């Protein structure tokens, strides 16, 4: 027996509350608006914030794409897609260009997003100052007072210890010159994609009960020092061993037997699209 759920899982009251928080988040870019995060049928910390945003946004005319760490087929993406489709019946896609709502865990797609698309990012730890102070009241106060010396100090200590900034993901950013924001654990490679983006970017943290946003055409600057500027991960000289892409975020794969390193596109749908278009070209050539 399957129960017939309400459209988009939530009752309308829950959607209204999330929608109001989202509008406030858009009006105060980078500020974490608290919201009454609902219990979801997936565990907190596994994308419930993103899922709640998606469910509050989605309508019958939407096309949904969900990515988990660059892949459309991994567990988190598949289970979220199944839940949304089961409760809304909207079509799913793997193509970045066809989607109207893209929910993502830890990546921004390689293809630039358009103005009619909304990117929803799942955030495990929305507070960039949490390492500075464990108390929510204190971090809220630091944001209020524009006191981000702690965020700078974390980066400074990394430079002292390792000679460079070692943030693997979620390198903090200044949004609209006012709030320091954790851009969800996207690699540094994706930080510049948030700057003056054409699409609206919404970030949801379910466990931490926060919603925040980066509206389109908004300045997003990654924190960096004059002598140690912000840099993205470099894949110089490497290319995807499947499609040959170079200007993309690559995964490093090490063969356990031969210990050989190979690189592969992290954004699987982008890689497959490239392979398909290459194949189509080859077929056309050989036919001629």
């Amino acid at each position, binding site marked *: 027996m399957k129960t017939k759920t309400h459209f988009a899982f939530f009752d309308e009251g829950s959607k*209204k509350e999330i929608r109001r928080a989202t509008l406030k988040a*858009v*009006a105060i870019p980078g500020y974490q608006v608290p919201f009454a995060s609902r219990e979801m049928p997936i565990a907190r910390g596994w994308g419930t914030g993103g899922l709640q945003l998606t469910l509050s946004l989605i309508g019958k005319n939407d096309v949904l794409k969900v990515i988990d760490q660059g892949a459309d087929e991994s567990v988190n993406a598949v289970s979220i897609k199944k839940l949304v489709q089961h409760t809304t019946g909207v079509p799913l896609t793997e193509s970045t260009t066809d989607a109207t709502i893209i929910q993502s865990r830890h990546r921004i797609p390689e293809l630039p997003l358009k103005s009619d698309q909304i990117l929803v990012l799942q955030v495990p730890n929305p507070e960039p100052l949490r390492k500075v102070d464990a108390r929510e009241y204190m971090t809220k106060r630091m944001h209020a007072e524009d006191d981000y010396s702690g965020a700078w100090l974390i980066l400074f200590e990394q430079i002292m210890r390792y000679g460079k900034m070692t943030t693997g993901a979620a390198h903090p950013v200044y949004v609209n010159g006012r709030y320091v924001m954790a851009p969800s654990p996207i690699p540094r490679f994706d930080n510049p994609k948030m700057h003056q983006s054409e699409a609206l970017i919404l970030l949801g943290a379910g466990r931490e009960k926060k919603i925040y946003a980066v509206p389109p055409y908004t300045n997003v600057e990654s924190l960096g020092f004059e002598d140690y500027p912000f840099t993205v991960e470099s894949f110089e000289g490497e290319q995807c061993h499947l499609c040959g892409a170079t200007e993309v975020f690559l995964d490093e794969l090490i063969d356990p037997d031969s210990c050989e390193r190979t690189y592969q596109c992290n954004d699987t749908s982008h890689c497959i699209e490239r392979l398909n278009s290459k194949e189509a070209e080859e077929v056309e050539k050989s036919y001629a």
Partner: protein
Amino acid sequence: MVIDQVHDLQKVYRKILHSMSRPGTITSFEQKADSISKSLPCNEAVFLCALTLFDAEVTFHIIGEQEKSERLAELISSYTMSNKAPHDQADFIIALQGNLTKEIEKAMNVCKSGDLINPQNSATWILESVLISNQSGVTLTGPGIEREALLQTGYDEHFWMARNLRTKEYPLGIDCIFADFSNQIACVPRTTKMVATEVI
């Protein structure tokens, strides 16, 4: 007027979100007009915004002619279960058409604009306009706007001066939704800077 609480209001929300994230961008709602909407004390777009955003957790205040605003307050309360509140406490302030410049200015000066710890505890204004257009009016710049946007809302420079005064201490401020009689809306959140380009 038959409004689907689930799907129609979802569409309205997406339009509001689109306009709020792109200040000055005009979006339009589907016309639902029939006999009931003709008897509404406000335009349909204002009413749809209220239906989309209000519930028992928020309060609202209406600025308008007494008879009209009482009728609208009763309608909104019965449809959404939200309650009326004085203008300095309300989460949403609806301003109707009419000769109300002074009342609007007064409410603008005292309405909630949040505090530095919780800037989201501020009033959102829903302003009834005759016709919004991008032809002339004020020039808007800021997040969500690529270069600049023109917006004509029908509200005069006193209104904009009062609004600018309340948004000066960013992140404190108020967010405005303008809703006109052609079922169009445009938003001006607190981040938007405006300059009067001509006599409005």
